C-alpha cells in the first residue's frame, strides 16, 4: 500500500508568540516542530505499512527548516520525503498550500493520504479538505480509529455524544485526531538511517506552478496579541464570607453568573 502523509512544520507548543516591527508573527529564534496532529498521521501510516506492507512518503510545503520534520518522519520509519520550498511566495493561505500539495500529489502514486486534522498554529483545518476536493477524493475528518481492508477504509470519528463509523473507498484522504494512536519516538538507529533515505527538494516552478494560481485568496489584515491577563484576586476572610464575596464579584464584576 502506498501512503502519502502531509505534515506541516509549526511553532513549538511552548513558543512565545511575538509580533515583529511590521506587525507579522515573529519567527526569529522560535523552536519549530512537526504539527502534533500530523505526528498521529505519520504514526498511523507507519502502522499501516507495518501491517500491510508498502511505502510511506512524507510531503511538506514550507520554508528552509521543513527538512527537519521530514527527517523526523524518515527517522520514525517513513521511506522517502519531498519538500516543496516556499521561495518567492510572500503570502500564502490554505488555497496556496492545498494547490501546491495537490499538484505534487497528482504525480505520486497513493492509496491513502493522511494528514493531521488541523495545524496547531493557524488552526484553519482546511488544507487536507481542499486537497481532497481538488483531487476529487473522498475524505474522512478527525479520525480516531482506522482500518484498511479490501480497498476500503473504515474509520471511526468522534461526534457529539458518540461515535460514527464510516466507510470510504480508497484512495481517500483521512485526517487524524488525538486518540488515533501514540506516536513513536524516532530511534537512534532510525535517526542515523534517515540521512540515507531520499529527500527530494522541489520549487513551485518545478511543479509548473506560479503567479495567480498560488496567490492567496485570503489575506490577513492584522495580527494582534491577546491583552495580557489581569492580576488574579485573592479573597481572604472566613470561608462563608469569602464564598459570599466570591459570588458577589462573579455576579457584579465579572458578570458571569
Amino acid at each position, binding site marked *: 500500500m502506498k501512503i502519502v502523509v502531509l505534515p506541516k512544520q509549526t511553532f513549538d507548543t511552548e513558543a512565545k508568540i511575538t509580533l515583529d516591527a511590521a506587525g507579522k508573527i515573529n519567527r526569529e529564534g522560535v523552536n519549530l516542530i512537526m504539527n502534533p496532529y500530523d505526528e498521529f498521521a505519520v504514526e498511523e501510516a507507519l502502522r499501516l505499512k507495518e501491517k500491510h506492507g508498502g511505502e510511506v512518503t512524507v510531503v511538506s510545503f514550507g520554508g528552509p527548516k521543513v527538512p527537519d520534520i521530514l527527517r523526523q518522519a524518515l527517522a520514525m520509519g517513513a521511506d522517502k520525503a519531498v519538500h516543496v520550498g516556499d521561495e518567492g511566495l510572500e503570502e500564502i493561505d490554505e488555497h496556496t498550500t492545498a494547490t501546491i500539495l495537490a499538484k505534487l500529489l497528482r504525480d505520486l502514486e497513493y492509496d491513502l493520504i493522511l494528514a493531521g486534522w488541523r495545524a496547531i498554529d493557524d488552526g484553519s483545518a482546511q488544507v487536507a479538505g481542499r486537497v481532497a476536493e481538488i483531487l476529487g477524493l473522498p475524505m474522512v475528518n478527525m479520525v480516531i480509529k482506522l482500518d484498511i481492508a479490501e480497498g476500503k477504509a473504515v474509520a471511526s470519528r468522534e461526534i457529539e455524544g458518540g461515535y460514527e463509523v464510516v466507510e470510504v473507498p480508497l484512495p481517500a484522504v483521512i485526517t487524524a485526531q488525538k486518540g488515533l494512536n501514540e506516536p513513536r519516538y524516532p*530511534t537512534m538507529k*532510525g*535517526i542515523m538511517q534517515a540521512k540515507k533515505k531520499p529527500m527530494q527538494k522541489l520549487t513551485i516552478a518545478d511543479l509548473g506552478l506560479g503567479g495567480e494560481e498560488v496567490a492567496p485568496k485570503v489575506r490577513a489584515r492584522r495580527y494582534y496579541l491577546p491583552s495580557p491577563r489581569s492580576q488574579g484576586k485573592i479573597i481572604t476572610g472566613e470561608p462563608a464570607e469569602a464564598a459570599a464575596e466570591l459570588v458577589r464579584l462573579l455576579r457584579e464584576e465579572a458578570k458571569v453568573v
Partner: protein
Amino acid sequence: MPQKGGAFLLEDISPQEMFTPEDFSDEHRMIQSTVADFAANELAPKAEELEHQPEGVMRELMRKAGELGLLSADIPEEYGGADLGKVASCIIAENVVPGGSFAVTHGAHTGIGTMPIVLFGNEEQKKKYLPGLASGELIAAYGLTEPNAGSDALAIRTRATLSPDGKYYLLNGEKMFITNAGLADIYITYAKVDGEKFTGFIVERNTPGFSLGQEEKKMGIKGSSTRSLIFEDAKVPVENVLGEIGKGHLIAFNALNIGRFKLGAACVGSCKLALEHAAKYALQRVQFGRPIAKFGLIQHKLAMMAAKTYAAESVVYRIAGLLDEVTADKKEGPAAVEAISEYAIECSIAKVLGSEALDYVVDEMVQIYGGYGYIQEYPAERFYRDSRINRIFEGTNEINRLLIPATIARRAMKGQLNFLGAAKALAQEILNLRPFLPADDGQPLAQERQMLAMAKKLFLFLGGQAVEKYMDKLAEQQEIVAILADLAIQIYAMESAVLRALKAHAAGQGEKKLLLAKLYVHDVYPLLERWAREAVCYLFEGDMRQTQLSIARRLTKYQPEDLISARRQVAAWVLEAEKYTT
C-alpha cells in the same frame, strides 16, 4: 591531525579547529530533541517515584531507553549498537538528566559498565553481552572500589584463584558502593590473580558464591542502587576474564576516562536544567512588589550560572569532537583504547570542571529559591543533594587533579609533550617579557586571548620552577600539583569558551557567546594570580621570591572591565529565554 592530549598548554589552535555545539549535525540535533522529548514525557514524571526505588521501575525505564537506542551510542553496530559517536553520546547523557537518578543508572551502565567490554572484550564476550547491554535487557555495573581501596584502587584485596580443574576463577573479597548493583545482570569487576596480578572479570548475577550487600542509605541520587558485591569463592568461568591477566588496571583506568568525560556531560545537562528551574522561579516569585528576577543580586547568580555552564559545555563538546575524530576508524579494542587514553588529561578536566560548575549552580539554585530551596516539595533540594556525588565518584576531584600534572609529566618524560623545552624557552623570554598588550587584530576578545596566552606562560613558568626544584619528588608537593592542575583546568576552560565564541562570531552567531566567554575569563582570572602567589611564596624565599612574584604579577596583569553590566546582560538573555541560552 587533531591536537594531541595536553598539548593545549603548549600551543594554540584556531577556533575553526575546535568542535562546538554549534557544529552539531542534523542527526545530532534530532537526537537532542528526541531524547529531550523522551525525558520530558517518560523520565521526568518518574523522577520523584524513583527516589524510593520502587520495584521494576528503573528497569522498565532502562528497557524503554534501550528500545530507543539510548544505551547503544558507544556500541558498534555489529553488536547491536547504534555507533553514534561521542558527541551523540554526550547529547544523550546531557538530556536524560530530567530523569534524576535515572541519569546515574544510565551513566554507569553506558559508561563504566559497558565500555570495558567494548574496549577490552574478546569476540565471544562482545557477542554475548553487548546486544543485551544495548537493548537494556542486560544492565551493567562496575565494581572497582573496595572498603580499603577507594582512591587507591590498585590496592584492592579481592583475590582470584584458578580452580583445580582450570575452568573457573574463585573470587574472594568485597566491592563497596557499586552503582546499579541491585539491578545489574553483569558486573565488571577486578581481582588480583594469585593476590598479585590485577585482572578484570565479567561476573554474571547468578554466579554461585556471589551476593549483594544491603542498599546504602545515601545523601542523594537515592533512586540509583548502591550496594556492595560480596564474593565468597564465587565461581567465575575462565572465559569471563576481561582482557589479559595482570592488565586489569588498563581496563579500570580507561573505562574511567570515558566515564569521567560522560560525567562531565551529565553535569552540564544538570546545570542547564537547574538554571532553567531557577530562571522560571525568579520570574514568578514576587518580593518587594517585584519578581526577584528584577534584582541585581539574583541576576548576578543567573549570569554566573550561565557562564560556568557555558564553559563546561564548551569543554565537554570540544573533547567529544576530539574523541570522535580520533576514533572514527577505531571503535573498539586496543586501537580505540590508545586513541581515547591520549585524552586522559582532558577527560579529568571535564570531570572536575563539570562537577564543580554543577555544585556552584545548584548552590545558587537553592539560594534563588530562598526557603523553598530547602523544602523537598521544590526541585532545588534534590538537585542540591544529587549533585554532590559527582565530585566524589569516578575518581575524586582531588585524585583527578593529581592525575593532570602527573600525566603531563609522564608524557614530557617520554618526549610526547615538549614541556621542558617550552619551559626553558620561556625562562629566556620571561625576564624581558613585553608589557601587557592585547593583540589588535580586529577580532573580538582581544584582551581575553592575551590573558589566555599569559595563563599558558604562567603554567610553564610555575610548572618549570616546580619541576626544577622537586624533580621526580614533585608528587609529594600536592598543593603545588593542585595549583598546576587548576591552572591547566582553567586554561582549557577559558580557551574552549573563547574559541567557541570566536567560531560562532565568525559565523555571525557570536553575540551571547562572546559575552559569556568574557564573563567566564574575567571571573576566573583573578584566581590565577592568587595561585601563582601561593606557589611562588612556597617555592622561593627572600629576593628570589620578590623577583618571581613580580614575574607572576606581570603574567597575570590585565585591564579590569565592567562585569556588572555584562552579568546583567547575560541574565536578561537567560530570563528572556527562561533557560540557559547561548
